[in-house]
């Protein structure tokens, strides 16, 4: 690293380590108006800070490094998503993006950008915006973008420690959109993506009672402090059901430390959950919770493809941290707003 002058290397460490999509915003590496490429499909995450950010393959990254620009991109068409209304209790950004993916379908935004507007988005924390932009790729989107605003500047200043100017790039008044999708979240119920596609989205209530062997809270989608807080609030003083194991993965070392200070990790451990190291966990089926035959997982991660969590004979449901925590207590899929 030193020989190559690489100064922003985040190794596997308990202090500055973590999931790349958490580290980039956390350390202020991404700013509004940046063009960001990454060799991971969830690079869409960084649109939450007003950047145009998209995933590419390894060869394309090597090409971009050697040339200084990415050759394989055209200006995509944009779908404007306007979100208004106040979230009901136990409903939030994850439920919203699942609802959007279910509506648009898994390829509804292929080769397009989702641009998020409306009161609900303006009032949403950067953490919530990250969850939404992160999963935009599950509708096929090249990128999900929340135009930079006061909250973006606040986040970069207060949480990422950025000192220099943060100019925001915002859409022109006469910007053209391929289509406008309007959503009112004031009556939105908790949502769940059922096996084996992310667009197989239903209200949680429709599959309530389904037995789950593993609960996962974490990932680049929902492993941040507010996600852990939502789960800890539900689990505090309760126990994870017998026959269900619950794994918690803070998205970064920094979040791990914050959750430790706030007592959330203690809440999880007392409830019988296993607090794991910060990182991707079993999301992509490689380690730390890969599923057994015929097991069902309920997870706050972003993909439920057949075999995704390491076993083609298992099933994965995707939900918010609140739904995951409520279900950990009962051992079956549970709608926290109905309990």
């Amino acid at each position, binding site marked *: 690293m030193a020989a190559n002058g690489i100064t922003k290397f985040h190794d596997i460490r308990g202090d500055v380590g973590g999931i790349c999509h958490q580290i980039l915003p956390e350390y202020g590496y991404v700013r509004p108006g940046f063009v960001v490429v990454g*060799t*991971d*499909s969830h*690079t869409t995450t960084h649109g939450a800070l007003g950047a145009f950010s998209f*995933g*590419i*393959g*390894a*060869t*394309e990254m*090597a*090409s971009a490094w*050697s*040339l200084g620009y990415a*050759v*394989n991109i*055209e200006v995509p068409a944009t779908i404007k998503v306007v979100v208004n209304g106040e979230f009901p209790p136990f409903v939030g950004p994850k439920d919203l993006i699942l609802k959007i993916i279910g509506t648009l379908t*898994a*390829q509804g935004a*292929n*080769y397009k950008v989702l641009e998020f507007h409306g009161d609900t988005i303006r009032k949403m924390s950067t953490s919530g915006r990250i969850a939404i932009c992160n999963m935009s790729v599950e509708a*096929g989107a*090249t990128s999900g973008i929340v135009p930079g605003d006061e909250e973006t500047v606040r986040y970069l200043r207060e949480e990422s420690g950025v000192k220099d100017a943060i100019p925001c790039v915002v859409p022109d008044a006469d910007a053209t959109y391929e289509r406008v999708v309007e959503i009112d979240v004031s009556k939105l119920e908790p949502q769940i993506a059922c096996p084996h*596609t992310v667009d197989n989205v239903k209200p949680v209530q429709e599959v309530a009672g389904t037995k789950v062997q593993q609960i996962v809270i974490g990932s680049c989608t929902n492993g941040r402090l507010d996600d852990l807080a939502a789960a800890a609030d539900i689990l505090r003083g309760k126990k994870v059901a017998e026959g269900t194991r619950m794994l918690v993965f803070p998205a970064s070392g920094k979040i791990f430390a914050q959750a430790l200070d706030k007592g959330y990790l203690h809440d999880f451990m007392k409830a019988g959950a296993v607090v794991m190291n910060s990182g991707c966990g079993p999301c*992509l*089926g*490689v380690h730390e919770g*890969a599923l057994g035959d015929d097991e069902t997982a309920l997870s706050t991660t972003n*993909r439920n*493809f*057949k*075999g*995704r969590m*390491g076993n*083609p004979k298992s099933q994965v449901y995707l939900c918010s941290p609140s739904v995951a925590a409520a279900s950990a207590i009962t051992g079956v899929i549970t709608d926290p707003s109905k309990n």
Partner: protein
Amino acid sequence: MAKVIIKLENDISTDDIYPGRYMATVLPSETPQFAFADRTDFNTRLRAKEFPAGSIIAGGENFGCGSSREQACSTLKGYDVAVVAKSIARIFLQNSINLGLQVVLCPGLEASEGDDLQITEDRVLNMTTGNSFGQVKLPAARKGIMDAGGLIPYTRKLLMARARA
């Protein structure tokens, strides 16, 4: 003319084409052994070299969705098969072009396993059923990469031109 060696459903993910547990394997010479690893029969037939070069994987909508893993393309490129699908997810399509894996976008495609297809400049002819389907052409920028034989030779050409300038 080439045979359809497998007909797949919609939303085939890169996890299906190349399961995550093999992601530590990256060399194009080594990834082919894990192509569709969880579809044991098809994987076995691929590894047994049952299918001649140019054989066709017929996909539905949104082929190659999900992870950006390039192994999902190199694993197929290793067998020199072609993918003909109704639609293809963005990153998979770009990776295919970059690695020189033949991909054809054919929104109206109707083909079953065993059918003989003829791929022309702008159409896909199903010689078994007698039907013919239009192709969606790739954007010009992408065609330049394909014509160069992939992104590595294309990038090399750009770098050499820069060095000469």
